[in-house]
């Protein structure tokens, strides 16, 4: 075991993992975090806690991680390169580990231009690839990025994101290989809607032997509405939403669109369970945490393994 986190245990034991996601509030309400967490308890193996997601200021990811730990959930602490330099990042990693955080997701971060402080100075001292390598160096070599010794290393289970859909498509599997080479233990993918393209990507990863070196969790976000599907298709960079998804949602008829969205997600999860190279699902029910129990149930992902 690298970290002994619940997520690591579930994956190494060969169970099909399920992770969730929780966005901290734009304010100080611990209750808000705990309320969202209550929907996820017992439903998922770990919960991603986003870090100033979409470049909007929110409660610190480590703080919300602690709040959900108090509720008996395991956090997957997200860290973006946009807001911190290597000193602050390493300090936060040490602190997060000291407080019991065992999973980390290393991300570049959305550009600050998208958020509520569009003229902020983006840091990007290191990038997500280099962040993965830094956490691994701290964990496995007891060294800071500079090479200086560190006492009692942070034993993190190291995660990263992958977007199988962004252009150039041929490059995507090589980028995955780079992240594995950098030291990543698990990958959570961008929301998948284009199943054909995803099948192609995962089969490339299988052919290159990559799926034997890393656990890949397929990203699933159920569509709540036709408007959401259109928004994701047209406004979210790197997102690939085929028209057939939009047409299917539209065809479901008034009052039944959300249920159809969930149905599509469950069908995807069924396929992922059988798909070679996929070790689990990362369920991002955006501002829809209360639907997670229903989705997990319908996708036959319950009960979660207790290890």
């Amino acid at each position, binding site marked *: 075991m690298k970290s002994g986190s619940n997520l690591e245990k579930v994956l190494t034991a060969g169970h099909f993992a399920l992770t969730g996601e929780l966005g901290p509030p734009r304010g100080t309400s611990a209750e808000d975090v705990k309320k969202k967490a209550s929907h996820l308890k017992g439903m998922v193996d770990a919960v991603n806690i986003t870090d100033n997601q979409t470049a909007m200021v929110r409660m610190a990811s480590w703080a919300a991680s602690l709040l959900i730990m108090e509720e008996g959930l395991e956090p997957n602490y997200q860290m973006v390169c946009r807001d911190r330099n290597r000193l602050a990042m390493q300090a936060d990693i040490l602190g997060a580990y000291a407080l019991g955080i065992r999973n980390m997701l290393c991300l570049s971060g959305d550009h600050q231009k998208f958020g509520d402080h569009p003229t902020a100075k983006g840091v990007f001292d290191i990038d997500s690839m280099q962040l993965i390598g830094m956490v691994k160096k701290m964990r496995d070599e007891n060294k800071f990025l500079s090479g200086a010794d560190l006492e009692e290393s942070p034993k993190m289970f190291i995660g990263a994101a992958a977007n199988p859909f962004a252009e150039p498509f041929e490059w995507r599997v090589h980028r995955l*290989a780079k992240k594995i080479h950098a030291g990543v233990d698990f990958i959570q993918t961008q929301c998948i809607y284009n199943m054909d393209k995803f099948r192609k990507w995962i089969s490339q990863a299988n052919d290159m032997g990559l799926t034997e070196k890393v656990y890949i969790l397929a990203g699933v976000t159920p569509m709540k509405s036709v408007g959401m599907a259109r928004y994701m298709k047209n406004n979210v960079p790197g997102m690939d939403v085929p028209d057939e998804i939009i047409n299917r949602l539209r065809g479901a008829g008034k009052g039944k669109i959300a249920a159809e969205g969930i149905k599509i997600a469950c069908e995807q999860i069924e396929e992922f369970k059988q798909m070679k190279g996929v070790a689990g699902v990362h369920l991002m029910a955006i501002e829809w945490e209360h639907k997670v129990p229903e989705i997990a149930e319908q996708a036959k992902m319950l009960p979660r393994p207790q290890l």
Partner: protein
Amino acid sequence: MIVAKRKPFDEIDNMLKGYKKVLNVGCGTCVALCLAGGEKEVEILNSEIDMARKLAGDPITIEGITIERQCDREYLEALDSKVEEYQAILSMACGVGVQFLAERFPQIPVFPAVDTSGLSANQAVGWYEERCRACSSCVLGLTGGICPVTMCAKGLYNGPCGGTNQGSCEIDKNQPCAWYMIYERLSNQGRLDNILAITPPMDWQNQVPRTLIQPGYKKPEDVS
């Protein structure tokens, strides 16, 4: 070359409040080429200032001079005998020129009339695109001659990120994704190996004021 953009008139007008006699110094090299601060721009700005102050009932004497380069002592010398008669100096040079001028005449306030905005290429008359951030650690040999520090909005060394959008950057559909271009160019040259390897974290060199002394030269003891 270094490019700059003239500051909004109100900002310049505001800086000059209270001064009755001002010298506007143009710079004949980079900022003249990019149409921001050469002889012609000095003349135009001075007419604007003159007119605005007259209209405001607070006339000003504003005169102009354009020297070859404000970042060179040799050319600044021409101002030595002139500046004393002015209460303030306006400089239309880049940030380097403004500072060099202020350093030479420390008793007189020096104000910038332009915003320096990059090391850019001239795409067409009046159209300049930034290409270099002067990071002191050039990686263009690895990246197919496309600078990720300047051209990638996140300055990534291991791109492209997941935000690349059919060849565009996530910040703007009209901004090409640097890493998409790097990938294409290296792919065409059969040099993708360059970016299959991980580029390690940068040793940033541009976090302190940099001094450059070429081999065979030394810093003079006294540089007055």
